[in-house]
């Protein structure tokens, strides 16, 4: 093609450059680089989530700058902490209130499979995947902020591989 080097996305034309790509690439790039997180810290993992958002680790570099208190405008719910029976209708409601496309990240042992309370607890829910579909599981108790960032970057890669017709 005129002015396009093989393997590049840029078409050089007189007066400027033009980016060439598919619609999906553009949409997915926009989606993955601007994920609004529903602030949903339940227990200890919430602190490491806050640390990932604060200085030193700073997830704003990756596009997660906006924490959204309302589920109506968030893209992603990070379930950080222990889920117990009393919380189940709340989580379900919040999930249903989020608009598509939405993603759920299970952060920490408790959200994955009940954590250290899997046995002998009469109220625990063994993993948030019993309630909502989960996209990414981040193990740890609590996972380090770097682990959370790695999980979120994995989510971003996943989003980039999606079709627009999800």
């Amino acid at each position, binding site marked *: 093609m005129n002015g396009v080097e093989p393997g590049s996305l840029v078409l050089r034309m007189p007066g400027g450059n033009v980016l060439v790509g598919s619609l999906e690439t553009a949409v997915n790039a926009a989606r993955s680089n601007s994920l609004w997180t529903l602030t949903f810290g339940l227990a200890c993992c919430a602190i490491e989530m806050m640390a990932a958002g604060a200085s030193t680790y700073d997830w704003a570099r990756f596009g997660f700058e906006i924490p959204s208190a309302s589920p109506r405008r968030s893209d992603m719910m990070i379930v950080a902490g222990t889920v*117990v*029976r*009393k919380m189940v209708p709340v989580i379900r409601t919040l999930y249903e209130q989020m608009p598509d496309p939405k993603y759920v990240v299970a952060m920490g042992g408790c959200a994955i499979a009940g954590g250290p309370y*899997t*046995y*002998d*607890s*009469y*109220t*625990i829910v063994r993993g948030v995947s019993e309630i909502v579909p989960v996209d990414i599981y981040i193990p740890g108790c609590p996972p380090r902020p770097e682990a959370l960032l790695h999980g979120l970057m994995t989510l971003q890669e996943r989003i980039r591989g999606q079709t627009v017709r999800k």
Partner: protein
Amino acid sequence: MRDTADILAAIRSRFPRVENRPVDPAPSLVVEPEKLREHLLFLRDQLSFHHLVFLTALDRPAESELELVYRLFSYESRLSVMVRFRVPRDAGRVPTVSDLFRTAEWHERETAELFGLEFTGHPDPRRLLLPDDLEGYPLRKDFTHPNMPRLPEVTST
């Protein structure tokens, strides 16, 4: 400001049954449940045990009783005392002390729902921590729940 010897003497004069448990230096005062409020009022007003640290119960299934335990601390004399008594395991009733110590309101609600007791005169005897659909009294020794697989026993040391 009285010193600790005075306080202990006053306690002994008013509470005939005082036990000293091993390990914990706080004396345990055994009372009858009906006299609980009178005794706690004495401890609070006469001996300035204003701080109710906690109140809880112990399940004694062998004697079919629940043992109630209260712990008080005095910032003036820096002493602790514990007050204890037993009630029947079925339909146990204990007078409330939530008007004497405001912290007792929540402690009593929690103890009532976890052990199956009634605190008569409590202003707000609702569930505090447990979900509404949970049946049974979790901290009793014979409590089981379908959602509660037991930890596998490991017999090696």
